């Protein structure tokens, strides 16, 4: 487990992010960015009201984002609760789209180790390619870092071949220093991805918090040679913001992270806004939401 994480200066982070947001992305570079972003989406439904039919509809959307526009990439994955993994698997057969499942008593993570392991195992056994776990924020705030570390390591073991995304729930951590510490713990414990949020807490993903995590990933890479992915999730609903996230990646971690193996967006409504912007770039006409399927 990492002994001490480096300090993070909030004002400096905000200044750096402001410079990113002042960048201008136009023409071909915009189209390229929009397609890249589409391809990085974990299309997500995590509602108490989810049903099999809803999940099937989502899987359909994932494979047919907007067939009127030829040559579009698909999203990276569909993200559901463990009990819908098999439905999603069945309905995504033949595509390259992965199935991700949230596990470990998502979203609060308030349960026993046994339940969390079982939750994970259930998703993995059903065929989940990726597991999105939540850390125990209560233990983290109590200073029980070893507990948090051990739990992640245990879940990682239970994942087998499935890739593990570790949700820090940054909106509950309070400071960038804490975000940095949680990132370092998660990576040391074996996370394949670190992820900002469950989407159930506000604030969810933000550019500044993502920058803090990207810098943690970069230091981890230089220190160990191990590449860890990044997934901001929640609150990213428009194309402009998504492109700014990609710029952060471009200028912090470069080419090796700028693909859906190592960068994901957790989002539900982002896809349609990206599509609207793509069609706008193509036709020159500002678009209406009525022309893009909602699932």
């Amino acid at each position, binding site marked *: 487990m990492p002994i001490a994480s*480096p*300090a*993070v*200066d909030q*004002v*400096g*982070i905000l*200044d*750096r992010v402001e*410079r990113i947001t*002042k*960048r*201008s*992305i*136009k*023409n*071909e*570079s*915009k189209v*390229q*960015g929009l397609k*890249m972003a589409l391809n990085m989406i974990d299309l997500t439904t995590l509602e108490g009201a989810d049903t099999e039919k809803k999940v099937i509809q989502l899987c359909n959307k994932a494979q047919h984002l907007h067939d009127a526009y030829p040559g579009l990439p698909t999203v990276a994955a569909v993200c559901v609760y463990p009990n819908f993994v098999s439905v999603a698997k069945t309905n995504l057969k033949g595509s390259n789209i992965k199935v991700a499942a949230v596990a470990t008593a998502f979203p609060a993570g308030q349960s026993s180790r046994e339940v969390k392991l079982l939750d994970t195992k259930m998703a993995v056994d059903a065929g989940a390619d990726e597991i999105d776990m939540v850390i125990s924020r209560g233990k983290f705030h109590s200073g029980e870092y070893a507990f948090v570390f051990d739990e992640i390591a245990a879940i990682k073991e239970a994942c087998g071949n499935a890739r593990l995304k570790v949700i820090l729930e940054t909106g509950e951590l309070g400071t960038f220093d804490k975000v940095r510490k949680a990132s370092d713990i998660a990576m040391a414990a074996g996370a394949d991805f670190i992820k900002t949020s469950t989407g159930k807490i506000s604030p969810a993903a933000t550019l500044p918090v993502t920058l803090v995590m990207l*810098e943690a990933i*970069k230091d981890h*890479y*230089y220190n160990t*040679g191990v590449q860890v992915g990044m997934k901001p999730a929640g609150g990213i609903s428009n194309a402009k913001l998504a492109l700014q996230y*990609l710029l952060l990646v*471009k*200028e912090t*971690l*470069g*080419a*090796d992270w*700028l693909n859906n193996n190592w960068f994901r967006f957790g989002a539900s409504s982002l896809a349609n806004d990206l599509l609207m912007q793509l069609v706008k770039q193509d036709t020159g006409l500002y678009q209406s939401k009525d022309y893009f399927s909602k699932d």
Partner: protein
Amino acid sequence: MSKKTIAINFDTGWDLNPAPESTSHIQLNEQYQLFIGGKWVKPESGKYFATINPATEEKIAMVAEANEKDVDKAVKAARKAYNDVWSKMPAAERGKYIYRIARLMQEKARELAVIETMDGGKPIRESRDIDIPLAAAHFFYYAGWADKLNYAFPNRHPQSLGVAGQITPWNFPLLMAAWKIAPALATGNTVVLKPAETTPLTALKLAEIIQESGLPDGVVNIVTGAGATGAAVVNHKDVDKIAFTGSTGVGKIIQNAVAGTNKKVTLELGGKAANIIFEDAALDQAVEGIINGIYFNQGHVCCAGSRLFVQESVYDTVLRKLKDRMESLVVGNPLDKNTDVGAINSKEQLATIHNYLKIGKQEGGEMYQSNCSTPKKGYWCKPTLFTNLSQSNRIVQEEIFGPVLAVQTFRTVSEVIEKANNTPFGLSAGVWTDKGSKLFNLTAQMRAGIIWGNTYNKFDPTSPFGGYKESGFGREGGLHGLKPYLKF
């Protein structure tokens, strides 16, 4: 996948398309006269000089060259305006005119930003987000002081001096004009301003704004020209006050010239600031501060953090992070909204910088430049740093005024204090540490006028600016910036 070396690959294949700021809305004349007594006046000599866009080497406009006679006219106009109108006007009314100038600058901010970038080569991001808003904010801030001077200097009955002669540099043309004019007007003085010869356009646009504001004729006069014009302003017998921003060499000439006269002087001169990184600092943000400290405005900044001191225990990490960050700096067309580092201001300045790069290498320094391409035309210098240096190297001692960083290491607090202060300059310094008590120790020990803690190159109209030692004397900005324009 083949086995990779551990390095960040910034060649992403996702390059941003050009995003040039539009120049269609700006209004520029082909030829500019002198602004004297509220009117545009032809120069006595009939001579004009070209002002060049350093990014394209193309001529933008011809500008009048003022000689001694023109300067005399300008001083007389300023004296007349002082005697007849400005010194008699109620202070609150004076303030309202300055507010008007501030508002007009805000209204025309984008036009001013584009012209500033064309004339001087600085990135539009900086002129748009820093130079112009700050310049307007200076007028806004000092406008409010006009009728409040008694509160700034209680029991001292502050009075204006008369005519102020002001000479501004080419690195922040409009901002420096604002730093000079705003406090002078607020304190009830009239002005003869001589902007730098390579970047006179925004000062001339300011003259148009001043006309539009209805400021009484002659309160602000703007005479363009080179060193001889500046000398005529400095040596004019009826000037009560000289304010100069520029090189230490010229500053000394001015101090010599005014010796024996009653002229008040403020000098804001060169610098060779230490930017000090301790091992406990937030290193990623410190690196951002190093970048901002030295590559802001191509390093054409008197307070640039040109001497970097890194604590030995984090030297490798900081250098690695710094080099990575340098890779994401976009160098090129200053009008492009994505440009981080623009054009070197003039051919002469580029030659000076190149000469220092040569000296640096000759003296054993190890040079590193970012892997960016630069345009064929125009004056460019890639972001540069030198390692393997010591205090005795010339590029550590002398002001380069370009995007060139001199990196050294240190072990202890006392060592870095000694090294940082081991310079004839004393304008600014930066300190990066997560420990407050260490930060305040360093701010107390640095012999410099501005100390930035965990930040760099921040400016505000309320915050005084100026140097110790050979970086000059007097302060500009804030309450303290009023004093050089007053007698008691």
